Structures are given as structure tokens and as C-alpha cells.
């Protein structure tokens, strides 16, 4: 009897073990699936994601190092004093963020996912919107890095395309975008930038085409390719013709929806950057008084790279809802003016410069600086002044040596000039065997450019990684 009861109990224990060890113990809802995240996304959801990523990329580090490098804003404190002096921020770890943002989530990877879904659902207008952003991302990548993957991007180990080929591909993408924007569909469900006004997307595409024609128009012998300059004129004619069509970041004063540069200024990095003396003086000399008054407080005095000028320095007036123009009417007009100038049509060039000035509500006329090519210098200066925090100011400087930027007083030992490009991102370098060693210049970078007055400037001398 005793033995029997024990045997029964043993059986019971085995039963307990068997019951607990049920077959599906290791699988099930919160075990086989992540209960916190969705497994798929629609084209519209991804389009929203990419739009926010675009705003974040263009308003924040590391892209805003570029205006710091050319002293459009003055890094004066803590790490930003060192960025301004090129003592840090020029390595491949810094550029990694931009590289990943270009290709990864929020960048090309999601753009292509969304394009595929929108194509499948027949929403060509949305495909067009997405392709305009794709061109912006990839064109900027070519501007920053030179040769970059594009044709085979999003494959396991993409090859690097020549910078010139990337620009060609970007032009083709923009052509397709323009076609798609005229096609079927309702576009992305949420369009923060243009509220589903597809004509504005189309105009932006044309301005971007003009931008990249200009970026590739310089010949190695300092002359410009007239065909491309004429293409600039053609595209700008269909480009952003009014400031209301500016492609600019869109913010609210709500928390987590504010301009990131504003958050940088007032948040934990208060005092790291100050208004730049160079930028203020340019705005003043160009008579861009409305812009001056909207960006800075009186008295209009700024600092220089690495060194604060003291307590009398102006304040930034950037606020939570300030829009940062990524592609604007001013750029469209001034690209046309530059093309006209280089084609010898100084009359239209001067007219367009003044028209741009007026279009943004600036009273009076832009004074033209003296000296050789004074009008061209003024056009590029105006673009530099107007393009607050826009990476184009840096790309234009590399191309033209305008404006005349003083070297930082405490420039880092490793430099004798403005850093000439971003190095390839660290992660790409260690994973993609096809990554070229960081070149001094790629095919379409100006190799021997001088300033418009014929004097070599330091922008081309020391390219990072060269």
C-alpha cells in the first residue's frame, strides 16, 4: 500500500513536469513577435518618417558643422569652439551619422520601400514626392562625399559610383519624379512641406536639377560648361519662382516638434555657438536688413570662429517654429543669376539678384561690390547670407571661394584651410571593401578653383583625408 501510493505520487510528479513542459511554451504572441513594434509599414507612414528625418538631418549635427566651418555661425564654446577651429569633427566618426541618415532608415532605405509600395498601389504622385527627396538625399551625399554608392545602393555591398555618375543618376531621378508628379494618385496622405501641392514638388525638382547642373558645370580649367549653364537656366525657369514655394522645415511650438537648431541654442548647449561677425556684416553690406532683423538682435555684432567677441554680441532670434529653407526661391533665382553671369549676360544676372532681394521683402537694392567679377561675388555672397544654416553655403564656398572667409584664429595644427569634404562614414569604411580611400577630390570637385577674382583661396588646398 505504501509503495503503491509512492508510485502513484511519482507518476503525479512526472505528470506535473509534463504539464508544465507543454509544447507551445516557447512560442506565442509575446514570444514569437515583438509586442512593442509593428512588423510592417505603409508608404504613407514611411513618407512621414522620411519627411521628419529630412527636417532633423538639415537642422542638426553633423550637417550644421558645414556652416560652422565657413563661419556662417561662430562656434565659440565647449566642443563647438573646437569644431570651428577644425580641432575635432573632421573625422570619419563625425560623418558616420550623415552617411547612415542618407542610406538607412529615414533615408534611401525607407524611400525605396515607400516608392515600391506606392508604385504597387498606383500612387505615382507619391512616388514622385519620394523621388524628389531621394534626389535631395543622394545629391547632397555626392556634394559631401564625392563618389558614393547609388546604382547598387541597398544591395549587400554596394559599389561606389563616380561622383559625376551620381549627379547624372540624380538628374534622372528628378526627371522621373517630375513625370510621376504629373501621374495618377493622390500623393502622400500627409505632406508637411507642401500640403499636397504637387506643382511645388515639381518646381522644387527643377530647382534641384539646376543646383546639380551648377555643381557640375565647372570645367577643370576654371571655365564653365555653357551647356550645363544653359540647363541651369532652363531648369530655374520652371523652378521655385516664389518664396511661397520654398522647401523648408515645418515646425510647431509643441514639444518634440520644434526647430532642432533652436533646441540646440536654448537647450543644454546654450552658448556653444554665437552669431557670426562675417554673416552679420554680409547681411548688412548686402542690405538684407529684414533677414538680419529676423535672425539677430541689435546691436548687430558677432563673433568669429573659436572666439567669442564678448557680451555685446547679438542674440539669435531663431525660435521653435523658424523654418530652415532647404531648397528655396532665392537659390533658384541666384542660380539663374550666376548662370547668366557666367554666360556673359550680366544684365539679367544683376536684375535677378535684385529680384531675389525684393522677393524676400528686402527694401532698397543690393549694393554690388567692386573689383573684378564684383557682381558674381555679390550673387554668391547673397546666397551665403540668405541660406542660413543651409549646407549649400559650404558647397558654394568650395566651388567659388566666396565669401572671403578668414581662417580661424586658433586653427588646428592639421589644417591650413577649410576642411574640404566629409570623410566617408566610419561604418561604411569598415564594412564595405569597395570604399575608396578618402580622396582629396572627386571628378567633379573643382580641382584648381580660384576665387572669382583669380586668387587662389584656401578652400581647395587641404581636403580632409587627402
Amino acid at each position, binding site marked *: 500500500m505504501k509503495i503503491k501510493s509512492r508510485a502513484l505520487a511519482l507518476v503525479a510528479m512526472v505528470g506535473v513536469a509534463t504539464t508544465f513542459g507543454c509544447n507551445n511554451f516557447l512560442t506565442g504572441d509575446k514570444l514569437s513577435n515583438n509586442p512593442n513594434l509593428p512588423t510592417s509599414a505603409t508608404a504613407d507612414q514611411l513618407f512621414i518618417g522620411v519627411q521628419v528625418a529630412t527636417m532633423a538631418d538639415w537642422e542638426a549635427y553633423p550637417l550644421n558643422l558645414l556652416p560652422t566651418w565657413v563661419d556662417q555661425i561662430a562656434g565659440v564654446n565647449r566642443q563647438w569652439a573646437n569644431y570651428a577651429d577644425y580641432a575635432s569633427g573632421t*573625422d570619419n566618426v563625425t560623418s558616420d551619422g550623415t552617411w547612415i541618415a*542618407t542610406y538607412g532608415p529615414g533615408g534611401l532605405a525607407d524611400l525605396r520601400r515607400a516608392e515600391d509600395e506606392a508604385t504597387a498601389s498606383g500612387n505615382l504622385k507619391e512616388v514622385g514626392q519620394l523621388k524628389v527627396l531621394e534626389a535631395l538625399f543622394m545629391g547632397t551625399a555626392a556634394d559631401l562625399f564625392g563618389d558614393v554608392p547609388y546604382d547598387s545602393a541597398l544591395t549587400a555591398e554596394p559599389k561606389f559610383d563616380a561622383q559625376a555618375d551620381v549627379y547624372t543618376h540624380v538628374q534622372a531621378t528628378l526627371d522621373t519624379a517630375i513625370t510621376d508628379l504629373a501621374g495618377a494618385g493622390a500623393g502622400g496622405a500627409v505632406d508637411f512641406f507642401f500640403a499636397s501641392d504637387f506643382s511645388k514638388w515639381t518646381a522644387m525638382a527643377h530647382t534641384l536639377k539646376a543646383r546639380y547642373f551648377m555643381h557640375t558645370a565647372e570645367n577643370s580649367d576654371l571655365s564653365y560648361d555653357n551647356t550645363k549653364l544653359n540647363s541651369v537656366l532652363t531648369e530655374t525657369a520652371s523652378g521655385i519662382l516664389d518664396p511661397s514655394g520654398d522647401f523648408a522645415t515645418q515646425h510647431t511650438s509643441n514639444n*518634440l516638434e520644434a526647430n532642432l537648431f*533652436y533646441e540646440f541654442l536654448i537647450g543644454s548647449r546654450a552658448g556653444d555657438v554665437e552669431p557670426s561677425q562675417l554673416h552679420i556684416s554680409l547681411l548688412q553690406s548686402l542690405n538684407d536688413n529684414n533677414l538680419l532683423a529676423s535672425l539677430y538682435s541689435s546691436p548687430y555684432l558677432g563673433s568669429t570662429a573659436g572666439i*567669442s567677441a564678448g557680451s555685446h554680441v547679438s542674440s539669435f532670434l531663431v525660435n521653435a517654429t523658424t523654418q530652415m529653407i532647404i531648397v528655396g526661391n532665392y537659390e533658384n533665382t541666384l542660380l539663374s543669376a550666376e548662370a547668366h553671369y557666367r554666360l556673359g549676360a550680366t544684365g539679367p544676372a544683376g536684375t535677378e539678384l535684385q529680384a531675389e532681394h525684393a522677393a524676400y521683402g528686402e527694401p532698397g537694392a543690393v549694393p554690388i561690390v567692386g573689383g573684378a567679377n564684383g557682381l558674381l561675388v555679390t550673387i554668391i555672397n547673397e546666397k551665403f547670407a540668405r541660406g542660413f544654416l543651409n549646407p549649400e553655403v559650404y558647397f558654394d564656398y568650395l566651388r567659388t571661394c566666396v565669401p572671403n572667409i578668414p581662417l580661424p584664429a586658433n586653427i588646428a595644427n592639421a589644417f591650413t584651410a577649410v576642411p574640404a569634404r566629409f570623410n566617408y562614414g566610419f561604418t561604411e569604411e569598415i564594412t564595405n571593401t569597395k570604399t575608396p580611400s578618402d580622396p582629396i577630390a572627386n571628378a567633379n570637385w573643382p580641382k584648381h578653383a580660384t576665387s572669382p577674382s583669380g586668387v587662389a583661396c584656401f578652400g581647395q588646398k587641404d581636403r580632409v583625408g587627402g
Partner: protein
Amino acid sequence: MKFRVLSVAALLALVAAPRMALAQGEALLTGKVTSVAGSPVEGAQVFLDKMAIGTQTKTDGSYRFTVPAARASGQAALLTVRLQGFKPKSVTITLSPGTINTDFSLESQAVVLQQLVITGEGTITTNEKLGVTVNNVGAEDIAKSNEPNLTEALAGKAPNVAITSESGDPGSSVNIQIRGIKSFSGDGQPLFVVDGVPVDNQSINVQGQFAGNAEQGTVAPNRISDINPNDVESVTILKGSAAAAIYGARAAQGVVLITTKSGKAGKTEYSLHSSYSFDKVTAGYPLQRTYGQGNNGFLADNGVLNTGLPSDTDAFSSSHSWGQPLAAGTVTYDHFGEMFETGHVSDNNLSVSGGDDRRSFFLSGGINNNNGFVEGPNDSYKRSTVRLKASQLIGENLKVGGNLSYIDTRGSFIQRGDNTSGIMLGGLRTPPEWNNLDFIASNGQYRSYRFQSPSTLSATTGRGYDDPFFIVANAPAKENLSRVLGNIDVNWEPFEWLKIQETAGADYYTDQRLEGLPLGNATSPSGQVIRADYNNYILDHNLTAIASHTFSPWFSGTFTLGQNLNSTDFHQIYDLGSTLIAPLPLVISNTISTNPNDNETLVHRESYFGQATADLWDQLFLTGALRNDGFSTFGANDRRHYFPKASAAWTFTKAIAGLTKSIDFAKVRVAYGETGREPLPYSTLSNFGVGTFIEYGGDASGILRTIYQGQAGLIGPLAIGSDSLRPERTREYEGGLDFGLFKGFMDAGISYYDSKTTDVIFQAPTPPSSGSTSIIKNAATITNKGWEITTNFHPIKSQNLTWDFGAVWGRNRNLVTSLSGSSDISVGSQAILSTFARVGFPTGSFAGHDFVRCGRGLVVGTDNIDADVCQGHPNGALYIAQNGFPVIDEANLRIVGSAQPDWTGSLHTTVGFLKHWEASALLDIKHGGQMYDGTRGALYVYGTHKDTDIRGQTFVFGPAANGVRGFHGDPAVAGPGAGTPVIIDQNWFEGDGGAFSDNVTDFIEDAGYTKLREVSLGYTFTQPWVSRSLGLSSVQLRVAGRNLVTWTHYAGLDPESQLGGATLVGGFDWFNNPQTRSFVVTVGLNR
């Protein structure tokens, strides 16, 4: 206090039960235990096997206990005597009513051999049979440490068990790392098992949990600190895979088995232990008090506010102290010392325990109240615990028991670390002439040195860096945790040869946090509140059957089979409220916008295990075991995995005649085992998610999310999961020798191990141009090889004087040997310093830039310096540019150091004299291992470090030249500017000479130390008057010190610092809070 102690003593006397007379039918067992030499043996356990009834011998060696009539029916029973240092002895008696007198004479035996060792999952053996290295830490050692955190109490107790405290803050976590790093992810902590149930030991830093910034915010306790050390009977550390394989895929970093105290049969015992501690910071910090606020030698307030709003009319003052020399008579402040006071910890524990032949109980309660050493409020940690452990014998073969603990902790923490609201960061950057205590301006506004004259319109303007006194008083960071730990045990012996054990356990806690930053703070100027709730729920079922059989006089064995099921559910809700509506209260509902997040991870584990042991000729002991794990975290394509182990121990002194004359015993052992580590939950999956983009400063509101303007956006995954993910696997060989000499004079153990961890999981970087940055896969290999020595000497064992001393020593060599083609993998991700896995270097090595030096094939400008300027100069010579300064090598990220020590060890001694006195000390040594002293590097930038007193003076880099003093300590220099005198000033310290440049090497320092970890002197009153006057059996008094002295070359506060807490990789100091030294007084009353 005096009144209180006496009152409690009186209370104990009242509740103590009077001695009972022998009742009808009972058996009274009496006798005397002596040594072979005839001296009485005190404290020996005398008990009846199988009946769980017994007592301990008294001072005169006598014992006396009763067996109830119902259980004394004339049957044969085995009466056993056991005490460390003696061979156990058993005699068979006939258990009949009446008095049964049995005397014992015990032979001496090496202390260690017969000690019982818990080996996990219900298995148990003796030291002699153990084929692997296991370290035990007993209750007495834990008590002597005076540490409220049980993990910290293990410091210096076992070789290659590295214990590092986060800081001296109340409630700070303690990192434990056993035999080196074996993974690239997770926190690297071992599995903790309390009374057979795996329990949680996470350290949840609120900032780290969601924003990934464990170096910011406040300290966070590791949850083992919830366990009251006074409740712990012993801690057993299963270090290597050969020991820990029985825990399979959870044991790669070792297993720590905690056994709590149980009641013992015999009279009811009462114990009250109280201690009081005085804590002071261990060191000062060198700050300059010569130069004032400003830049470039000017007394300037040279910043501006950026927003230009009407409220922002007040200028920022310079963040630096590169101003003019302070005028004679200028009042300056000790910005480090003024922040700290003497902290106090009180610890009170009361326990009642006892039992009889059929039941036992242990009831305890404890309150540990730690008022920290930071000047001001909001710096405390209070732990209250109650616990009941009880068992009941049902019939003759079934024993049921339960163990239930309730823990309540209330923490109040201080902002610290890489944090503009951190007290060390703001405090040490303050110019010497600024009075941080005067942080309220005349208009009532909060002010700081960077924002000195706030107007009434500046309430929501950030103060640059927060004033430490303001933040301590106004930025509460609270924790409120309730935890229940418990298990129910059923032990059933249906047959003589079979034991079945079922343990069903649970560990549940809810941990509520609230961190507030008031208006105007530097981190989030419009105010911020973080509310976080963490719920962890572990359910564990463990069923084990152990069969034992003696096949012949020379062959016996056991066979164990078991099943384990575990469910671990962790759920967190986190809400970040921004922009306060009213200045107070600091609660989420008083903020304008909130950013809630929640996250849950559920893991199920199903395991089966078996173990067989064979004891041959009482000298050869073999063990083999196999575990099969199936975890929900494994890839669905590769769900179940085996983890074997095998070991042999041979006490060869029993085989070789004549050896035992001077050798008490000697044992060789060899072992092999495999353990694993599971992938992090959901690593097998790729999901879309809400994108978060953070601006440079990382301000809580400086974020854009793809939930934007009320619209829902998603982005794809950065890391791609893999459905074939396997557990990481550690294979370890271990061998060693244990021996004792000269009749207990000394014993020692030496071990060598060689472990290889393969299939290490990491996010293998993929080209970002492929669309993601990594794929999660099993792809790396890490090796850990090391030696361990433990030795104890017992030179004096006389009646009035005993003296023991010993040492432990451990060396571990950790190397990453393969990354499957990847180069540098980020390990121990944090913002302060890059820490990498790179093939050929220790895991988590520091990566950074060095200056250009000879012999590295470097190019400066167009010059290949090795060919052009380094001829005739040694490799490593510092390259000096034309201007007389060195140049940072921006192109190469070099491995510049590692936190992993060359070796660790400790020396300990205990002296007992006149039976009542006991003195002990523990010296804890860490040799080698480095720390990134970013605090010094940052204070160079700010011009407040004492070293910056040399500003304006002329030096040459390298050795002195032409009568000019050398600078930077380089023995050799080369280059066009070598020997060129330069002025060392703000440009150098703020630029390449400071931590905000890419210069890392200048701040890598040797972080080795020798610490007088513990020293104590105690007296135990056991004289007759104690019983007569106080009604107590003994009274203990002890004075002790902890961390009294630290010898180190480290230039920062303390080489023991682990910013970020219990993390895989340590070794960075960025304004971490200091450590403390403690003086402790303890009173113990026992009855």
C-alpha cells in the same frame, strides 16, 4: 540609544521560553564531545540523520536535546557529530524513551574537505568531491564587510571575481565580473539564484533605460541590493563553465547562489544586530584657486543668450576660468569639499529562529537607512525587509517549506555624471571666486556661475551648468520599490535512495521612479519630469529527482534528473513630461507635453538536465552532466541546445601511502564545461518603429519623432534580426590542485582555466549603403585564460590565541580573437569614450586618437614623418610641428588602453584572542587596468583644474631643452619644431591638450589600487553575567572601518569608479560622484 538597547534586551528576556522538563515518553539525548586530546569541542552540530533534529555543543562540549515520544519508538537512528576541522562521526543508537548518553571523541581533519558545497539546481556535494572551482563566502565574512549591498560584500573574497562599486552614493549599483568579459552585449553580470530560484539583478538607470545614457542622470541600484545581507547564510560562486554548466545558457558569466538563513532545531534564538556608520568621501580634488572667470586672460562675461526673447536680456557669463589672476584677498571656495558632509548609515536587524524535529522557522526584519554624504536633502536610500522561512515535515518523508521576503526600498538620488545638471560637473567647473552656496539672486531667481544675474523674466532660461546646491535641493530623483521574493519547496523521499525536490518560486517587483528638474535647470530649462514604472515578474519551476546508490564498498553514485521552466516578464512604462505648467509640483500632470513610451519583454525558458556522479574508492570522484535548453530568445530555426560538463577529482593522498605524514590531503582535479548566454529578447526579429532624431545636445526636448503633428510615421530597422540566432557558447577547461599541509597549518588551491567563447552575438556592421547598419549574428570569439590561487594559513590555534591569514590572487587574460571579418565593434556603448572589440585586444578596450608619433608610418601634410623627421629618433617619439606643438593623429583610432586589470588579489587576516576578542583586516588589490580620466581632461578645458596653474609659462614639449622646462612627459621628440619653446595657456588646454579635442591618450591613467577594504575589532561577551544580568547568551561589539586607505597613482577621485553602474565595460570617469570611507560601530545581542 542605550535605553533602546536595554529595552530590547529586556524584551528578549521576557519572550524567551522557560526550559521544559522531560515529558512522558520523550527521549533525552545527552553526552559530551571532546577532541582526541581530550579537550571539549564547542559548537559541534549533534543531530539525528533523517529526523532533522539536533543541537550544538556548549563551551564544555556537552549537548542535550529531546526527541518527542511520537518519534522515539525504539527504532535505530544515526546520531552524527559534525564540525569543521574534525572528521564527522556517527553512531547508531536505539531511540527509546528515557535518557540516552553518547560521548564522542573527534579526530582533527583539514578544514576544507568535508565542507558542503551547493552546486546548483538542487545538487550538493563536499569540497573533497568537487572537480571544479567554487568559492564560498559565509555569513561572518558578509557581516564583517559592513556593506548594505550584498554584491559589494563579495569584494576581495574570491579570485577573479572583480567587484566595482559605481560610486559611494546611497543605492549605487555594484558591478560584478567573473573570469572576464564573455560577451559584447548585456550587462555582463552573473546569474543570481536565491534558494534555488533565479532572481533579477538589473540596474535600471532611468536615463539609460530609454535614452541610452546610463552615464547621465543618477545612480541606480542593482537589484541584488534588495537582499538583506543579514539574511544570508552563504554565497556560493560558480565561476567557470565547468561549474556553472548545470545552468546552461544563462551561466556564461558565472552563477552566484545565495542561500538564506534557516531556522535550526533546538531552542528558539533571538538576535538583534544594530550598526551605525559614518561615511566620508575618500579624497579631495585638486582645483586651482588663482585665476578667475573669463577667457584669454580677460575678466569677461562673454557669452550671450541665443533666443533673443525679451526675457533673455541677461548675459551668460564665461563658462571658463581663464580670466585674470584673482586679486589678493579675493575669497575663493573649495568647490569640491563644500559639496560633501559626513553621511550616516544605520542598520538594524532582528531575527527569531528555531524549530523542532518536524518544523523550523526563521523570521527576520531589517531596516537599513542610508543618509548620503552629499550636502543637502534628497540623498538617501532606505531598505526595509521582512522574511519568513519555514518548513514542516509531513509524515516521515515529505517536507514542505516556504520562504517569503518582502522588500521595500525608498531611494532619493543625486544628479551626477555626464549631465549638465550633475553636481560634480557643475561644481568642479565653477570659477574659484564664485560662491555656489549663494545660488538665489536678490530678486529670488535661481542663478549659477554661468548665468549670474537672472531677471524675473528668465525663469525658464537654462543656467548653463546647474549649481550643485540648487540641484540637490530642487531636483528630486525618487525610487519606490516593492518586491516580493519567495518560493515553495517540496522535498519528498519516497524511497531511501530517491529524493524528489520541487521548487516553485517567484520574484516580483514594481519599481516606481520620478525624476524632476525644476524651471531654469541646465538640462531642460522649461522644466522636466520623468515618470517611469518598471515591473519584473519571474516565475520559476524546478523539479529535480536525485537517486543515490552504493553499489559496493568502493563504488557509490548519484543520478539527478531535472526540469526547469522559467518565465520572465519585464514591463516598463516611461513618460517624459516637458515644460512645467506651474513651478511645482514636479509631476507629469504638471507638464504641458508628455512623451509616453512602454515596452515589454517576455522570455520563456524550458530546460532539462541530468547529472551523474561516481565516488570510487573514496578518493576518485567523477561528475558528468548535460543540460538541454530551449529558450524563446533562440532563433526559431535553432531552438534547443545542449550544454555538457564533466569533472574528476582525485584525492591522491589516499592512494599513496606515506604521503599523509605532512600532507593532510592533496587533490587534483580536471574539468570541462560549456555554458551559454541567450540572445537579447527579440533579437531574432526585424521591426519598424517610431523614429527619434536627437539634436547635438541630447536635451530631452531637442528631439523630433516620426509621430509628428499628430501624424504617425515609421522608419525601418537599423539592425536586422536573424531567425538562426543561437546562444553564445563558452567552452572551458579547468584544472587545479588543492592541498592542506602540517595538520591544518595551511591549505591552498591553485587553478588554471582556459575558456573560449564562440558564437558571440553582436550587431555585425553592414554597409549603411545597404540600407541598414548591422545584422545581428553569432560571429565573434573571445578567450579568457587565467590562474587563481587561494591560500589560508592557521599558524596559531591555541585556546587563547588564534591567528589565520591568507591570500587570494587571480589573473585573467581576455582577448577578442575573431570578429568574422568585422574590424571594430562598439562594445559597452556609451557617449564618453569609444570602447571597442578589436581582434588581438581585450574586449571593451578604449579607442581614441593619439598624437602623431614616430614609427607608425604616419603622414603629416605631405611628409612621411618616419622617413623625413624620425631618423635617429626612437619609435614613439612625439612629433613636434614647426610651431612647437604636437599634432593629433586624426586619421587613426588606436586602442589606447583597457579597464581590465593585470591581476587582482587580496590579503586577509583574523586574530582571535582571549576567546572574546577578534580583529580582522582585508587588503584588496587591483594591479593594472586603466581609467579614462575625462574629468581631468574637461577641467583642463575649463581652466579650473589645479594643473592649469602653469598657464602662461614657457615649456618645450618632451625633455627639457636649452634651459627650458620639459612638458607632457615624453622622453623623446622629433620634428621641425622639436625643442621650440611654447607658452602653455588656454589655447593648449582648451584645444589639443584638453578632453574636448580628439586627444584621448593624455587622459588614460593607471587605475590600479590597493585598498584597506575592511578592518574590524570585535569583542563578544559570553561571560556568565551576560546571561545572568541581561538574559542573553552573548553580546557582540565591533568597531570597523571600510575603505579607510587607498593607495593609487590615479589622478582622479578614486580608481574604483564605474560610471553607468553594473555594465559590461567600465573604466571611464566623467564627473562621477566620489567613493566613501566608512567607520562603523556594531552591537549584536543574541539569546
